[in-house]
């Protein structure tokens, strides 16, 4: 296991840096808005926010095209945004409106857009792991160069599906990248308590594949490691476990009192260890982005999110007929 906290900017173009910064901001502002609106009681159901983990989804998806597939988790908004899902459609989906990406029938935990290679947020912990190898199997059988990325939490690494999927991906050399978002908590239990291993990437050794642990709050480090893993997968060199040590800025779900969190760690996460602030500094220091460019992106994203909220609020709820449509294609 190696830990990387710094990576070089040599592979990141200005254009890519702009995309990365914008996507991270989109996720952050989207989640902050959802948090505020949920508190006002205007969003139904369960919501799990991705804020704080932006660097993982964005650093990985920066290497993917619409033909590559990803599987996600209950904390899926960030993956959707990084994979290019429409913000208006996402917000409307979370509001349960007919204009949502899933016509309001999926909600926060099931946002999907297969045309973008986003195979769905998923309400079942561990479910995305076998699904990802299925997408990898399709790529192998059809002999495309597409890859599949499985985003999963440290909680899911204790699930049998993790081990079944990694083993199968390894024996079949599937083009899959298992990206563990190790935010230190599975619900209200710590990773240290629930997992026997210190690092999820260490399991790679047992399955004889590449495993790497990086600072998941450092988008540069994630981008660099993911780039190598994606390249290996496209080259037919098999799967990788990429563990990104990160932090969940909000609770497990909205309404979680988070009494299990260390206050000092939380404070540090929200300030000096904030992945967006860290990337701002990095991008400026390495002359990828100027202060003005950063401000312009911030403003652009603010307008996008405001548009998405208005779009959602103005959209109608689904028609009553939608209760029983889309159960089958033919029945």
């Amino acid at each position, binding site marked *: 296991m190696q830990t990387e906290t710094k990576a070089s900017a040599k592979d990141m173009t200005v254009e890519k840096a702009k995309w990365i910064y914008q996507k991270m901001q989109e996720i952050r502002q989207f989640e902050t808005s959802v948090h505020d609106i949920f508190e006002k009681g205007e969003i139904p159901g369960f919501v799990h926010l991705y804020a704080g983990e932006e660097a993982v989804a964005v650093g990985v998806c920066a290497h993917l095209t619409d033909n590559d*597939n990803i*599987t996600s988790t209950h904390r899926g908004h960030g993956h959707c945004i990084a994979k290019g899902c429409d913000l208006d459609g996402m917000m409307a989906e979370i509001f349960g409106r007919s204009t*949502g*990406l*899933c*016509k*309001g*029938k*999926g909600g926060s935990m*099931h946002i*999907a*857009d*297969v*045309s973008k290679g986003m*195979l*769905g947020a*998923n*309400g*079942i912990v561990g*479910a995305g*792991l*076998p*699904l*990802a*190898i*299925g*997408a990898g*199997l*399709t*790529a192998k*059988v*059809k002999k495309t160069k597409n890859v599949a990325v499985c985003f999963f939490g440290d909680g899911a690494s204790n699930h*049998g*599906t993790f081990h*079944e*999927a990694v*083993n*199968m991906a390894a*024996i079949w050399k599937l083009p899959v990248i298992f990206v563990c978002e190790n935010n230190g908590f599975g619900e209200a239990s710590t990773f240290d308590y629930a997992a026997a291993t210190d690092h999820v990437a260490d399991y790679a050794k047992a399955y004889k594949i590449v495993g790497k642990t990086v600072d998941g709050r450092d988008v540069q480090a994630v981008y660099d490691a993911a780039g190598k893993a994606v390249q290996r997968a496209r080259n037919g060199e098999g799967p990788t476990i990429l563990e990104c040590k990160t932090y969940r800025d909000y609770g497990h779900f909205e309404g979680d009192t988070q009494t299990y969190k260390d206050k000092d760690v939380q404070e540090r996460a929200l300030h000096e260890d904030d992945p967006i602030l860290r990337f701002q500094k990095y991008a400026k220091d390495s002359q990828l982005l100027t202060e003005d460019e950063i401000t312009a992106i911030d403003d652009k994203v603010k307008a996008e999110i405001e548009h998405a909220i208005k779009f959602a609020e103005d959209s109608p709820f689904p028609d009553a007929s939608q209760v029983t*449509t*889309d*159960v*089958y*294609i*033919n*029945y």
Partner: protein
Amino acid sequence: MTVKMSYSDAINDAIRIAMRKDENVILMGEDVAGGAEVDHLQDEGAWGGVFGVTKGIVEEFGRDRVIDTPIAEAGYMGAAVSAAATGLRPISELMFNDFIGSCLDEVMNQAAKFHYMFGGKAKVPLTIRTIDGAGFNAAAQHSQSLYALFTHIPGLKVVVPSNPYDMKGLLLSAIFDDDPVVVFEDKTLYGVKGQVGEGFYTIPFGKAEIKRAGKDLTIVGIGKQVNTALKAADQLARKGFEAEVIDPRTLSPLDEDTIINSVKKTGRLIIVDEAYPRCSAATDIAAIVGDKAFDYLDAPIKRVTAPHSPVPFSPPLEKLYLPNPEKIINAFQSMVGDKVFTTV
């Protein structure tokens, strides 16, 4: 043109036809070929499935499309679901339906719900082949008939073929259907032979077959119990009662009309189902008929099922456990009364 072949060979034939027709069709599961990476078995495989049903298919299509999986049902069934969602048309074998406990999430929460949860924008053209049925002395964890479990779940289609002809046509329908379908193969039927159509043909889902016409009683059999129902009907005919025997062929969708129209004619219904009696296909059909044809019933609906207990191992116990023609005839006798039954 038809040709005589076994239920098992009908499955093998259907899979080969489908794989020739569409290169996106793959076959996967535990030892569907067998002997992976064993040099001398690389081409021919070892088992061809635990009952040899898929024997030889790897020889024709190779190991890229006939994939032996580890014994990891959640892993490979989940992979099959997503392979289907991303462009393949997998036939994924769950060796025994009793193993569903190891991969129910993948079937119930993933395959069944993608199309709905994603607003109709995803499809999962997955066929799950699985072995069910008691009568093989395979005991409690290898003998269940769990089709009701799947029928309960919206988004899944459930197929219970009772004979080789139906098996081939229904399996081909399943493979080329765009929804996830679970096809039940009764292990005691594998050796049963019958006339099967040559080449490609399909049998539509939701179309029951009236196996025998009659006016005094409707018997609906599920899966191999269609054959038990036919034997009972023969015996009843010798006593002067004409039973109409219906094979629903698929439980989801269910051809309610054929059953209801039959009951309207006969006024009596027995459902023969070797699955557990509670929340079962039998109770479901009874409820539907009770709801939609109550006024036509001359007697309470009877269900001839397994008792509410696991499948026993010991051969005499298993024999007692399963439905048989005598149990059906006894049920009919209770419906018409001893006097009518014995005086006809």
